[in-house]
């Protein structure tokens, strides 16, 4: 398939993120999403991402948030009653991005385009894009929690 402009990838990511989270929240709570004008140049410290690739593109698709956002997202998946520890929070974020990228893969298939996925990677720390990679970020406010959605790509051409 032909590569897309980073803004198109971000749009697909936003859609899949909302679809997946709405399904997890179904019957429990209503989620309120707002896109925020984004001038962020760096990602928050709790990062989960998956590599997506096909013949004509290769990128990492992910989300990043601060501790309170990571806890919020993890509890959304696991339920409020569960006691979160560091491992479980990371595991939940990895599963979340795994499911979101699975949804993007399925949506791409609906467009007639195949793609492959790597395994989820979870990072607690600072991600520094190197070697001609560009990080395109959109910021979503979800129930007062700031979640950055990002694609890490080589420059679009």
């Amino acid at each position: 398939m032909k590569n897309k402009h980073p803004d198109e990838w971000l749009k697909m990511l936003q859609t899949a993120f909302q679809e997946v989270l709405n399904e997890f929240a179904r019957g429990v709570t209503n989620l309120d999403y707002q896109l925020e004008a984004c001038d962020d140049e760096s990602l928050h410290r709790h990062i989960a991402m998956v590599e997506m690739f096909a013949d004509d593109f290769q990128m990492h698709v992910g989300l990043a948030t601060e501790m309170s956002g990571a806890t919020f997202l993890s509890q959304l998946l696991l339920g409020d009653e569960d006691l979160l520890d560091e491992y479980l929070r990371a595991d939940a974020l990895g599963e979340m991005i795994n499911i979101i990228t699975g949804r993007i893969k399925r949506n791409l298939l609906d467009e007639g385009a195949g793609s492959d996925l790597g395994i989820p990677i979870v990072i607690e720390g600072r991600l520094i894009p190197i070697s001609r990679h560009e990080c395109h970020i959109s910021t979503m406010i979800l129930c007062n929690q700031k979640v950055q959605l990002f694609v890490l790509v080589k420059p679009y051409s």
Partner: protein
Amino acid sequence: MILVVDDSKAMRMIVKRSLRAAGIEPDKIDEAEDGSEGFQKATSQDYDCIFCDWNMPRMSGIEFLKALRESGKSTRFVMVTSIATPDIKETGISAGAAAVIGKPFSPDDIKTALGL
């Protein structure tokens, strides 16, 4: 007795919560961390149903399913995957899965997969 097989503890918790919501009592749910452990458990005792992730280290869900069927076990097997494409579903069903359900899933999806 239900066996939940997934290398992600978070996902095992999610499946177990959905099973409880579907009316399964907690003491009727067992778990395994990968296909290899799942295969050992599934061939050493009888389960009513197995919920199994597709992508796992050591032994994947589809390898587990094929090995289980080769061992002669006909336990109801439900594959759980984040990539529920038509190809994946067909591969799972052809290998002997009763159902292939995509993540995220609802308690109703779980009930249907259980045949309730």
